[in-house]
């Protein structure tokens, strides 16, 4: 009786295992005949296309087609969404974007907000990327050392990367609002409230701070991987060669980390130029247009304003695409020359 009782879970397990094995066998064997047939009929080259087709369809529909449509919208005018109702206007949208008496004074431009967004983006990118690379590098160097709780800190720094940018921005908004956590702390210590998100300088600072905080973990991870790939022997050889810690960093670590640094720089740069969601939720581009960047200008122009100027937005997005293309090419070239050299 006991034996029977003891053996029934084993029987169930055996049945389940057997069933799973049969299903797996079936799954693997069902496509075999048609695949063999396809291989015979189509040949090796064509069958590759068969596998690529589903992905190509998705890519075409959701990436390639929108790019083409974007081109079409950029050279057509009017406020209609339906393509056939949009008149062809050539380069008028681009002319409008670039109509400026003095490019260094955006108030003299026809689309002053576009130029304001360009300047804001340039300022943001130049500060944010430098800080991003710098802090990621410092953090990676610290996390690469034998410190207490290294595993914990590595997770902690990466944690913000796992959060949605919108969540990150909402959390920080909650901290930085007039009646937010930070002001409550300042007040409890006898200080006065600061309008963090309403003061143009402070809001710009916090936009940089929050984006660096949110994305730094990812870049730290890339640099940490690079640091760990540097053999310990090389450092020991440098130690025997009487290299000071600073010289070891400058002459050994930095050059050997350069391929990873270039990747980080390229990714950070491209992402910084595209910054939208964190800023949109945190400051909404404000106060005024103090934190309006290029992507937000495109969004505002195309979708958020009462008169939706799709053509202008599409033209601006092409300008952004050109900027990103140039940046990517420059970085690829730099990384190639570094690796080859």
């Amino acid at each position, binding site marked *: 009786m006991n034996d029977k009782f003891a053996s029934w879970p084993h029987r169930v397990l055996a049945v389940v295992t057997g069933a799973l094995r049969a299903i797996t066998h079936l799954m693997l064997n069902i496509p075999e005949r048609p695949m063999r047939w396809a291989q015979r009929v189509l040949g090796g080259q064509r069958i590759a296309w068969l596998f690529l087709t589903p992905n190509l369809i998705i890519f075409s529909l959701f990436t390639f087609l929108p790019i083409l449509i974007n081109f079409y919208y950029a050279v057509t005018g009017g406020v209609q969404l339906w393509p056939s109702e949009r008149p062809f206007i050539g380069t008028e949208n681009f002319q409008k974007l670039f109509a400026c008496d003095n490019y260094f004074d955006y108030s003299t431009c026809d689309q002053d907000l576009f130029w304001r967004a360009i300047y804001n983006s340039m300022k943001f990118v130049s500060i944010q990327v430098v800080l991003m690379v710098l802090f990621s590098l410092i953090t990676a160097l610290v996390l690469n050392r034998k410190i207490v709780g290294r595993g914990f800190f590595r997770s902690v720094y990466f944690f913000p990367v796992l959060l949605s940018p919108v969540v990150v921005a909402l959390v920080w908004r909650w901290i930085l609002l007039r009646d937010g956590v930070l002001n409550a702390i300042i007040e409890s210590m006898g200080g006065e409230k600061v309008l963090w998100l309403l003061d143009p300088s402070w809001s710009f600072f916090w936009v940089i701070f929050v984006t660096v905080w949110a994305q730094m973990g990812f870049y730290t991870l890339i640099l940490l991987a690079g640091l760990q790939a540097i053999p310990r*022997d*090389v450092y*020991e050889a440098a*130690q*025997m*060669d*009487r290299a000071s810690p600073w010289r070891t960093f400058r002459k050994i670590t930095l050059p050997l980390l350069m391929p990873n640094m270039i990747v980080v720089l390229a990714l950070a740069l491209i992402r910084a130029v595209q910054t939208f969601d964190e800023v949109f939720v945190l400051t909404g581009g404000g106060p005024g247009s103090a934190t309006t960047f290029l992507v937000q200008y495109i969004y505002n122009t195309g979708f958020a304003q009462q008169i939706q100027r799709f053509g202008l937005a599409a033209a601006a997005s092409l300008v952004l695409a050109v900027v990103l293309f140039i940046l990517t090419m420059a970085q690829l070239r730099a990384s190639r020359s570094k690796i080859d050299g």
Partner: protein
Amino acid sequence: MARLQLKKVVKSYPSGDVIRGVDLDIDDREFVVFVGPSGCGKSTLLRMISGLESVSSGEIIIDDQCVNDIPAAQRGLAMVFQSYALYPHMTVYQNLAFGLENIRTPRDTIAKKIAEAAKMLQIDHLLDRKPTALSGGQRQRVAIGRAIVREPKIFLFDEPLSNLDAELRVQMRAEISQLHRQLGNTMIYVTHDQVEAMTMADKIVVLRSGNIEQVGAPLDLYNRPENRFVAGFIGSPKMNFLPGVISSIDSDGVQVKLDGDEEPTILARVDGAGRTDGEKVTVGIRPEHIHVPGDQSTGRTAAPNGGNTVKLAVKHTEQLGSESYLFAELSGGKRVVVHLPGQTSARIGDIIDVQIPAPSCHIFQTDRGEMALPRLDAPIDRPTTPQTDQ
């Protein structure tokens, strides 16, 4: 002048001691080889000397100065790593110059020293190349060059040849020995390869489990191993170990009856003082000390001093042309390896009489660290000269 002393040096990790109270004296200009199986602590000991590993207790003294608290950079030593540890982004010249630049050596002095070292190591045509464009042997030369240009008190080599192929290893072995004669520095060399140790060292330090088993000149270790571990580690193929009991002790030596009813008795010219009849021991016989009297083809036809004659059943032979191996069994089934010069006429299934000279036999105790009994006279080290057919 660079004399190194280790006094009761210990290296402990949470998992246990890796080096357990090592005492060692290394004289100026000596070429010392640390040898031992994997995990014996030889590399750890070298790294402790270099300063790359801290000392848990004991003292490391270089030229009468305790260097325990002196960082690696300040000890005046240079190390050649197993993986070469060249700076991959620098050219050969920059690799060689880096150490000198760190101590602010004038540029022309750097250039001069590099030119000399490069010429000595025959890498002067490679100075503009990066390490990735070099072969294993060239990389090793650059690593040695990096050590040479710094003119260290002591050179440390951590298994420098283990990544090279067999042919290159033989070549580099000779080059490092030549370098030692040329430079005259103290050199400490770590290897697990006993051939490297035997061919290069002035003094071999045999390590096991963080302890020194024996220190001595290569042939001393071969001829007079202090214990069974050293006897088994030094020499290739490995010494034959045959367990038995002492059957008699007299002025000729110690007679050991090998375990097993049909196994023979072996006489060894060792001092049996303090030993008693019936005591368990292990007889050690080197494969190259067994002679086959009837085998004309090998040239080693008779043991010079006579000794023990035993029967062996040949189970397998390996003929390498210039030497032969017999894998045989004694009457009772104990396995014995015989190493003969030249080519043997013995065939599988043959029963052959072999002679084992009593002075070539070792006896090891089975307890107390398996120590060897003292030899009564000089052992017969060399086989008789092979005869050539007229």
